[in-house]
């Protein structure tokens, strides 16, 4: 039966995280935007302790709840809780949210397809004393949205794999790959057989500090500066044979690759949720300012009565809520064990686009002050834009939607 009310369980997660976002993230948001490439260690350590003690935060929450309420209670709403949590943390600050330690994308991959031994070796780290990151290395200089064109190679050499190639736009690549930052790991996509195309693409777990993996650079970015975006170079990087995720066999079909791509179905709603948080931060700020100025939004008024400002605000609010409902639906479907490939891409495409528009409009509405770095609005506009790009650009997600509704393969529609 249709219900739009958060469960008390999730609602309380929300409450806690909202406090955290307001009091622990907002105050340092500007600082770590200006001090690019420096890390908010106090915040990072606090989040790590918090997630271990009280189960707050997207990464860790479920372990904690498991203890409290038994696995059932957890799994039933895990994805929904995650998107609610991520929206709230991103409402605090999207850059800081991305800098929070935890399993993240790499961990999610291990969780999804890792062997018991791999889970033991890699996931246990996230229960330790010190913050640990993992990262996902997919994009290459020569391939942006075109994951199938991956050039990085993995060649078997006895009981090792030897990796070669360059990976860019690797979120938290520094924190996950540099042993001086954390005992983390990076999940790297590479091909074991280029002639096999997509079918030859596998993912490999590379421990922080593995010889042959160097962190060549961290990008200067438009926004989300508290989070590092690393370039990783692999030169004859040897890793244990067991570090391959999934089977080393190259199937005849590209089913395996589809499997890899399927992890996006889980991560796209999370990116959408992060977008929503940034958009709502801007919307809340504008609402409060308008209230201070005595401008009220007259819901229900006839069209002739509306000011341009009122209508702008209403449009921003409606678009944002539309994106939120699409996001909740995609996460809810995952919780129900339903395929959500289409809905996940709808959520991501809509949210990424909407928050770009909403934050840009918010800057305009507040005039000279909106454009100033004295307020956070201009930062939110810069942070928001990444959501229109990573985890599949708006165009890539529209393509996926189109393929699904038209029943086309990637050959038939590209």
């Amino acid at each position, binding site marked *: 039966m249709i*219900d739009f009310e958060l469960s008390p369980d999730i609602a309380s997660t929300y409450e806690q995280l909202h406090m955290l976002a307001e009091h622990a993230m907002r105050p340092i948001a500007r600082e770590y935007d200006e001090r690019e490439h420096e890390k908010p260690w106090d915040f990072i350590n606090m989040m790590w302790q918090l997630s271990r003690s009280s189960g707050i935060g997207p990464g860790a929450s479920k372990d904690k709840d498991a203890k409290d309420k038994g696995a059932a209670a957890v799994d039933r709403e895990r994805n*929904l809780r995650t998107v609610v949590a991520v929206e709230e943390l991103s409402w605090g600050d999207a850059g800081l949210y991305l800098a929070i330690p935890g399993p993240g994308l790499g961990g999610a991959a291990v969780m999804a397809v890792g062997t018991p031994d791999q889970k033991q070796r890699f996931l246990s780290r996230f229960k330790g004393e010190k913050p640990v990151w993992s990262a996902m290395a997919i994009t290459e200089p020569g391939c942006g949205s075109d994951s199938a064109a991956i050039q990085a190679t993995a060649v078997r050499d006895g009981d090792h794999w030897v990796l070669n190639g360059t990976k860019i736009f690797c979120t938290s690549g520094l924190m996950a790959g540099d042993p001086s930052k954390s005992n983390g790991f990076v999940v790297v996509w590479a091909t074991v057989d280029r002639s096999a195309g997509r079918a030859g693409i596998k993912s490999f777990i590379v421990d922080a500090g593995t010889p042959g993996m160097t962190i060549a650079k961290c990008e200067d970015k438009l926004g989300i500066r508290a989070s590092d975006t690393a370039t990783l170079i692999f030169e004859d990087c040897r890793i244990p044979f067991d570090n391959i995720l999934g089977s080393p066999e190259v199937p005849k079909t590209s089913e395996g690759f589809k499997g890899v791509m399927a992890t996006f179905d889980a991560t796209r709603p999370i990116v959408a949720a992060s977008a929503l948080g940034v958009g709502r931060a801007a919307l809340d700020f504008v609402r409060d300012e308008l209230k201070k100025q005595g401008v009220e939004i007259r819901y229900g008024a006839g069209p002739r009565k509306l000011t341009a400002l009122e209508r702008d605000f209403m449009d921003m609010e*409606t678009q944002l809520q539309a994106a939120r409902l699409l996001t909740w639906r995609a996460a809810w479907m995952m919780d129900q064990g339903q395929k959500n490939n289409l809905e996940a891409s709808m959520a991501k495409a809509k949210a990424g686009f909407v928050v770009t528009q909403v934050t840009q409009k918010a800057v305009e509405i507040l005039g000279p002050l909106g454009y100033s770095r004295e307020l956070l609005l201009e930062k939110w506009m810069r942070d928001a834009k990444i959501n229109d790009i990573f985890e599949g650009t708006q165009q890539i997600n529209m393509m996926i939607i189109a393929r699904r509704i038209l029943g086309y393969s990637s050959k038939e529609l590209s």
Partner: protein
Amino acid sequence: MINFELDEEQKLIRDTVVGFARDEIRPHAREADEKGVVPASLVQGGWELGLVQSIIPEEYGGFGSQHSALTGSLVAEELAYGDLSIAMHLLAPRLLTVPLVELGTDALKKSLLPAFCGDAFEPGSAAVMEPRFDFDATAPATTLRREGDDYIVSGGKCFVPLGSQAKHVLVLAGITNGDGSIHPQAVIVPRDTPGVKVGGREKNMGLKALETTTLELDGCRIPRDHVLAAGDDAAMRRLANLWRVGIASMAVGVARAAYDYAREYAKDRRAFGQAIAQKQAIAFMLAEMAMEVDAMRLLIWEAAWKLDRHEDATREAYLAKRYAADMSLKITDNALQVLGGHGYIRDHLVELFLRNARGFSTLEGLAIA
């Protein structure tokens, strides 16, 4: 706890309506539009679905199901998917019965509701809109004032569905308080009341199959109990929101009809050696339609859900209706664009979808959830 799944009863109702819209309504959509008539057989067939009778309490002859805005939204969307004019015709009686069931005195219900529980379609209607550029349902120019034990209604209405057929019309009129503030009120006006004049059939860009008329009210004397929930602003806000959800739901139906039509056309139609759907320019348009149809519906469901919890859903319903009106126009216009020249001729239904969709930003009170 968040849930996006309909309950079993809702699924059952929707499936019934889906079939009727597909098999009965859609095949008549073009002819009904060109001729300006909804076939009597369809009206009777629609009546037999029991969509009007269902929420009328058993004591008045109905099936006594609980009224649900969400269920109403499902029905409105699916019927409008078949055809907007026909959907509005079939559901017009609810414009009268839903407010009656919710707000009428027992005596009034006794006298009016049984007529809507018979074997034959019983027309009902509401007169909400007014023929002004700057019409605003929150401040109707049609006036209502006390006179002794009665009320006097005066003013001019337009877009009154089945205006010449309905024996009773729910009229939106504004009562002016001592402080000069205008408060909308819903008044049930029997058509035979002295001073009621039903105007001629209106001609509009869309909704051609639906009879809509103007309605003149010249000092019509109405018994006190015919004014529903007098002075209860919250009840009137709820009614306005039920209208918004009703119209918005139909907008989704029309938008989805256009999207489905364009999608199937684009898969069949070939140009430059491919199906045109294989061109990004077309494929992305279709993808956006699919995405926005879902987005519209979710916003509407949230508003309907709030109404079913009897919370004030003014913000949600108002915003959802605006969004649905804007998006249904964009979607039907893009659907026509996908068909190109073929979309511009009346051999295809998309131009009809566009003409109908353009009305949603303006229409108020022609449907109720």
